[in-house]
């Protein structure tokens, strides 16, 4: 019975339907717009969590699949499904979208349009994660980039929003063009038994491309998506984009969109072209470690509160790439956990940064201080996020970083430098992260409260609910990692077999 309900389509299209509904409302009914948005986002979040628990781990594989021909002449179909790899990311999107709506409650400038674009973006993100058809994946991918441009350009930080929106869009479009070329190469070089071409990724995975073909097309496909994952040296758009975006968009952006890049690079690049991955990932891991170390050092010297978080995302996403590059069970499970953990953590960070900025109207760290007296909830939430970020045991960061490092040790059998990279990433990444987090916590939340902030208001109930939800997941995963780790383990097993790892 349950199988008949198209759960995935409901999750993907509820936001889109909401976007249309919002456009039908008169723009001045702001409260109604906000309430409807919150309800819709809550429903999506609840459904995605239900889906998480409804997935049968013992059975594994793709579940809740739906398939309808879309353009059969070109081998394009609406083909969606979840496995252990994308399900955590669907949940992540649900959570970040709902909390994003909550912290956007105070937007007064055209909230109707804001939430409309926001929901289109959410649909795009959900769509990418559940797509099993490569064309559909690109379709949703571009669908996510377009509202992002408008959201940043219109509601962003006035100083840099036009520059950042343009930079981000160009970077991501150029990246996706490269990936698309790779995808088309795969499309045209495989002929199904029926004599047609197909975008079906399950079939393409069985296509048996020649090793030379795989090596040739791996780099454009993988790196094109890796731009969105913020892989060094293509990370340049991300801190600017994060900083310029309005709070909820930064949350979605750093929290979910960067995972979109990592996930697509994995789904299209690594899984479809495993020989290419085996050849090039041992070198890409060197870029990843630059991400980790360089991102952390740059975060340390920022004066702008939001840039600190922006660069911390660059640093942490490096760990995701590092995990994938290990090509073994530990590294991949760790990377999967890290995607979820970092998504929640950075959403929390950006939410708190937004709360501080909305009230203080500055983000210059030396001018801030003593915020714990004005917003204790935000301070505690930020500290918990900080502990996650520095990999403190008991929180989700630890249980996701640990398998990544273990994976890197184990990958010593692939290339001798993997253990060295693990050591470098840990020795430089972890203490520097601790240092910049403590610097920010100390300067922004503790110390003297500057007199001009003596009368700023505290945070709202909606803000508190959002923070509580995010913190709940960070601690929950840290204390009981099995709830997600086992599922990801089920999800990555078949793909690792193709890579020859275990």
């Amino acid at each position, binding site marked *: 019975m349950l199988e008949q309900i198209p759960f995935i389509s409901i999750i993907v299209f509820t936001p889109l339907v909401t976007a249309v509904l919002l456009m039908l409302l008169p723009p001045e009914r702001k409260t109604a717009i906000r309430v409807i948005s919150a309800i819709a986002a809550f429903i999506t979040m609840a459904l995605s969590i239900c889906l998480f628990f409804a997935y049968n781990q013992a059975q594994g594989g793709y579940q809740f699949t739906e398939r309808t021909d879309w353009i059969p002449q070109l081998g394009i179909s609406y083909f969606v499904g979840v496995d252990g790899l994308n399900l955590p990311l669907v949940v992540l999107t649900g959570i970040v979208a709902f909390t994003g709506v909550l912290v956007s409650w105070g937007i007064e400038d055209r909230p109707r349009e804001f939430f409309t674009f926001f929901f289109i973006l959410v649909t795009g993100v959900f769509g990418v994660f559940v797509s099993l058809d490569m064309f559909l994946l690109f379709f949703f991918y571009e669908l996510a980039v377009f509202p992002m441009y408008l959201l940043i350009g219109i509601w962003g930080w006035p100083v840099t929003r036009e520059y950042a929106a343009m930079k981000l869009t160009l970077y991501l479009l150029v990246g996706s063009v490269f990936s698309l070329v790779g995808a088309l190469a795969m499309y045209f070089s495989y002929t199904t038994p029926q004599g047609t071409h197909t975008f079906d990724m399950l079939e393409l995975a069985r296509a048996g491309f020649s090793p030379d073909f795989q090596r040739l097309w791996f780099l454009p496909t993988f790196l094109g998506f890796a731009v969105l994952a913020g892989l060094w040296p293509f990370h340049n758009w991300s801190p600017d984009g994060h900083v310029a975006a309005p709070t909820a968009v930064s949350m979605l952006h750093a929290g979910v969109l960067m995972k979109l890049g990592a996930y697509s690079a994995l789904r299209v690049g690594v899984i479809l072209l495993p020989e290419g991955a085996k050849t090039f990932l041992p070198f890409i891991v060197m870029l990843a470690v630059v991400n980790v170390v360089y991102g952390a050092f740059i975060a340390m010297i920022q004066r702008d509160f939001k840039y600190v978080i922006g660069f911390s995302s660059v640093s942490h996403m490096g760990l995701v790439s590092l995990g994938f590059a290990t090509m073994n069970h530990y590294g991949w499970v760790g990377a999967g956990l890290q995607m979820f953990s970092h998504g929640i953590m950075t959403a929390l960070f950006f939410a708190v940064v937004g709360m501080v900025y909305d009230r203080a109207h500055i983000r210059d760290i030396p001018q801030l201080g003593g915020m714990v007296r004005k917003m204790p909830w935000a301070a505690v939430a930020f500290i918990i996020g900080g502990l996650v970020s520095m990999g403190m045991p008991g929180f989700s960061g630890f249980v996701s970083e640990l398998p990544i490092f273990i994976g890197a040790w184990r990958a010593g059998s692939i290339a001798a430098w993997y*253990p060295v990279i693990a050591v470098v990433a840990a020795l430089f990444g972890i203490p520097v992260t601790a240092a910049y987090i403590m610097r920010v916590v100390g300067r922004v939340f503790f110390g003297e409260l500057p007199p001009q902030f003596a009368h700023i208001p505290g945070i709202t109930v909606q803000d508190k609910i959002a923070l509580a939800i995010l913190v709940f997941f960070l601690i929950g995963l840290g204390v009981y*990692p099995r709830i997600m780790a*086992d599922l990801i383990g089920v999800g990555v097993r078949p793909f690792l077999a193709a890579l020859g790892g275990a």
Partner: protein
Amino acid sequence: MDFILNNLLTLIVFTPLVGSVLIMLLPRENKPLLRWAAFVFSLVPAALSILLWFVYQPDVGGFQFEVYAPWFPTINAGYHVGVDGISVAMILLTGILTPLAILISFSIEERVQAYMALFLLLEMGMMGVFVALDLIIFFVFWEFGLVPMYFLINQWGGADRHYASFKFFIYTMAGSVGMLLAIQAMGLTAGTFDLLGIAQVWPNLTVGLFGLPITTVKTIAFWAFFLAFAIKVPIWPFHTWLPDAHTEAPTAGSMILAGILLKLGAYGFLRIIQPLFPHEFQAFALPVAILALLAIVLGAYASLGQRDFKKLIAYSSVSHMGMVVLGLAVAARVLGADEATRLNGIIAANGAVLQMFNHGLYSAALFALVGVVYERTHTRNLDDYGGLWVALPVYGGMLIFSSMASLGLPGLNGFVSEFLVVRGAWPVFPAITFIGLLGLLLSAAYSLKAIQKVLHGPLNPHWTHLKEVTWREALAIAPLMLLMIAIGVWPRWLLDVINLTVTRMIG
């Protein structure tokens, strides 16, 4: 009752967490309620650790009250806890010291709720380290304990608290990164993080990792653990965070820091380095003993030079913990030797563990006493005191009593453990032991200096109206003094338990 006995260790570790959460739910404004609630909650793990002390069977080998539950199967780490005689003693110390430190903290007026909640969290972290039998779980609690301590110093500390807490955090964290990497490498080689499982595999490993010969791998891993523990103990020259952290921490924070947190480092030597790296530790026992000697002598010498009362006690901790490390080095050195030599190692290790317990008692008492006088005079400069014994006779008695325990007066606890360490070390490292005795002389000198500056001489007219020790403060310090005398006069009740475990470990 069965439930309690079957889950005794889990209860000891997590009842402080429950207390911490409950405190967060109490009304924020009601300070007396918060204080008493924290005190009462901390009595629960205290009672459980005393219960553990009595139900633990010293003559049964191996670990007792073991519990195993899978926690993170992806990397094969489990919640594995269990205790032997050494952990039981440390748990007893933690269980007793925490409520007393909370009693001392009743004078905290700012944000009592957060303070008390953090304090109980800290207890959870420490208890967890003492029961952990899985390297990952060990690391989890080891690292987790840092967070509450950081905030206790950072938020409720003295004038230079931000610098001190930052230094404390970064030092410890830098040490533990190396340990984490070593844990990963070991777990990978052994296929498990279970301490007992690794102890079977790791010391006998003959195949290298990543093209490095196994001796190199083991040596690197040994130094990684050594560094993490050496920073925590602290062993000279890694001690420089300690005087800052101790001096800036609130009184109860210093009590716990000196009383228990330093012991985590020494405990790590016993629980991890001794069983997993016996050959490496043996090979490097001499350099470690020399570092211990430097800690003993230089710590005492630095202590003698201090004008700040609290810094004086802080440096004395460096010196006294050096004694512990000397004992551990002796125990490591005698591996595989003949029976008579091994007996020296056993004696020294007994002394080291007992010294951990003893130092926990008198350093906590001394820090509490510094706090008592600081709260009344708002100065820690030794030159500003003088003649306080006239104004505060009870206080004077307590200070002299605790200082005497610290300088090793026979009849009090410090003498017993120092004697055992020196007795064990003498045949193994004669020269080092001989010079180390100079440190003991210095320790008499600084203790007497403190007593003289604070209590004797003409009474400074500012202090004529100082309040005597209150019943609450006396109640917090008296149990420590009772234990000091109990161990000094009849050490067997404690030593028997320690000795049986240590003998199984080294003999």
